């Protein structure tokens, strides 16, 4: 048996022994997701047991090095783990922006001290992070952001406002873009880490058209951010005034995630929707069929994109194309789900719709082509960087 096959059978046995039956059910709502953090509570004993078993094994972040709380798996082993977990429908033991966003940025740009401290905290689910990028007036055009950190020697004093900060009200720390040089539009931004419990930091939830929302407005009123949290643990990631490099790297990860290159929103819908609808309109059926053609083609693109990324064949701006096409497709998907659902899909809080799932999801997708860079910005990037069309 090859090493990989040994690993597969051992992993299967470990999961059999450690993943409780309750944790092999699909995630139904946000309560089924464990986000970690200082004030986190578990929904059930099974959720706690599953999280702790994974944490101790390094499986909250399997591909990270062992010294930072991961399991140090090779890409091939990590793939096997994903496959085996998927085969028993295991829930993710821990979800967090620390894992998806800050972690990759720290692995790439962080100091050894930062990695030791923050990556371990993330892997163990001790600190819950939020992302402070967008501002009122600075959405996709991030370089225009205004939140300002004034240099006071051993610390900054940060003033300003962020918006669309997902789960800011539940987060312990923030990774935040702060202008530290007003004279340099691109370079004068620093990627800072600080505690949301610091005096002067406050949050306010934003109610969305879907009736609920993870988003907040975040305010900084003379927030004192120390420049260092100890030896080799600076408060900024990368260099001061060069936070844009970190932010761009991280946005690449975010776009891949939103675009569903991971298979999240690539499915067809015609088969499932038409089964529930005896009197399907032939034109609606035709639209569903055209959608399925596009969805299957996009799924092939997702597969091709990942294959090419692995061997460095993908154009660096290809994630922008995936994000653009994936989010536009997902909006169309939910328009069609609403059409096929008819009046039932309109029910806002009935049992039939599990609390208005179709309509809330439909409304939620409208943000797909806005968050993480709008479709228009994606098209700008494609036309400039891939097609090399002229102009500023």
């Amino acid at each position: 048996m090859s090493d990989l096959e040994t690993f597969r059978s051992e992993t299967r046995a470990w999961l059999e022994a450690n993943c409780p039956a309750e944790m092999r059910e699909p995630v139904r709502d946000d309560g089924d997701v464990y986000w970690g953090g200082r004030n986190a509570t578990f929904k059930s004993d099974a959720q706690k047991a599953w999280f702790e078993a994974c944490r101790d094994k390094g499986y909250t972040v399997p591909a990270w090095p062992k010294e930072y709380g991961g399991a140090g798996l090779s890409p091939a082993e990590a793939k096997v783990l994903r496959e085996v977990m998927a085969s028993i429908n295991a829930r993710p033991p821990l979800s967090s922006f620390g894992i998806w966003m800050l972690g990759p940025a720290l692995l790439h740009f962080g100091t050894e001290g930062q990695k030791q401290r923050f990556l371990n905290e993330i892997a163990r689910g001790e600190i819950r992070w939020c992302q402070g990028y967008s501002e009122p007036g600075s959405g996709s055009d991030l370089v225009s952001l205004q939140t300002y950190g004034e240099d006071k020697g051993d610390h900054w004093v940060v003033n300003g406002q962020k918006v669309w900060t997902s789960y800011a009200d539940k987060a312990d720390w923030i990774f935040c873009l702060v202008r530290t040089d007003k004279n340099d539009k691109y370079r004068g931004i620093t990627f800072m880490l600080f505690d949301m419990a610091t005096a002067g930091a406050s949050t306010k939830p934003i109610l969305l058209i879907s009736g609920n929302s993870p988003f907040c407005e975040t305010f900084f009123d003379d927030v004192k951010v120390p420049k260092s949290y100890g030896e080799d643990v600076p408060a900024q990631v990368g260099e001061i005034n060069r936070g844009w490099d970190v932010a761009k790297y991280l946005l690449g990860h975010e776009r891949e995630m939103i675009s569903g290159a991971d298979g999240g929103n690539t499915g067809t819908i015609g088969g499932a929707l038409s089964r529930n609808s005896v009197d399907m309109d032939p034109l609606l059926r035709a639209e569903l069929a055209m959608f399925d053609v596009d969805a299957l083609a996009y799924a092939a693109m997702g597969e091709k994109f990942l294959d090419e990324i692995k061997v460095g064949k993908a154009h660096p701006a290809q994630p922008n194309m995936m994000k653009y096409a994936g989010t536009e497709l997902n909006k169309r998907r939910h328009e069609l789900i609403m059409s096929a659902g008819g009046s039932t899909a309109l029910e806002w809080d009935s049992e039939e719709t599990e609390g208005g799932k179709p309509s809330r999801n439909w409304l939620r997708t409208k943000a797909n082509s806005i968050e993480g860079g709008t479709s228009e910005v994606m098209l700008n990037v494609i036309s400039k960087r891939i097609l090399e069309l002229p102009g500023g």
Partner: protein
Amino acid sequence: MPLYHNDDQAMLAESAGQFMGEEGAIARQLRHWRDRDCKDGFGHDLWKQFGEMGFTGILVDEDNGGLGMGHVEAGIVLEEVGRNLTPSPFLTSSVLAATALKHGSDDMRGRYLPGLVAGDSVFAVAVDEGAKHNPSRIATRAEKSGNGFKLSGKKDFVIQGASADMLVVAARTSGSDGDENGITLFAVPKDATNMSHDAVRLVDSSMATHTTFDAVELDGDAVIGEVDNGRAILDAMLDAGRVGSAAEGVGVARGAMDLTVDYLKQRKQFGTLIGEFQALQHRAAHLYSEVEIARAAVIKAQQLLDGDSDKASLMASVAKAKVAKTAGLAVREGVQMHGGIGMTDEYDIGLYMKRDRALQEFLGDAYFHANRVAELSGY
């Protein structure tokens, strides 16, 4: 298998690209033959060169002198054919007919394949009956007669039918017109008596025929595969052709897009390059995205076909439908963004529009294939 070309395939793409860009270029082939009102719609010398390059026998096994490669490789040649609008019998002869002949007897394969591999023979396929592709309804009949059959009926949209040395004909040997079963494929030689071609030139300057069979007498050894059980071979042939025509369509889309993007970088209006206008940038970027996605669908379909996957038919239709939509978008945007010049015969962009139109219709359009995707998905 990863969804990109391996080293050997990348080499093939390079040589096919170079060959088609030089020998198969628009001025040298498409315009040349069109302006001479060529009765075949393509040049036999070029077809001979296809043979010398080894392209003709890509899908023919080595025992019959071919290369024994797959649909990914055939698609590589077709994408370059599409990009350069190179008129040739490659799709009908080397993809469709060659796929059908895989099921022919040794004797039949020995009779036809060496000529194909050498670039001497040209084959056509006669499936459609009527203006829209509908292979589930076949009315052309072949009735038992002595040791052989008598073939009667009429086929339409037979590409290069009058130039072909042999036609693969789908006919009914039992049952009624709409039946799934009862289909038999025949290899009908060009000199068959009582077969007549009404040749027509199409919008893209290619030649097609309405072909009539009036009690054409065929020997028993003209049967490809088994009598009455030809549906599976017909489907395999059509799926190969669909994936192949999708690959050619991607080439057409890329050719049109490249021409257009180049033009956006050169043409000035109102004192600026028109490629600086965001309205045009966004449309070009959208087009690029669609072309990339269509290419992914095509290579996925090629790999599934090569791997004999039971998902191959579904993906063949996905690829054909997606490419039809995408190439259509590419040529429409191309002509529009070229402005008035895009309407002139002198500029090539209009030739792409014409070729795309014919290719969309060949072996089923986007509507046909979206419908097939729905049926294969159970709705």
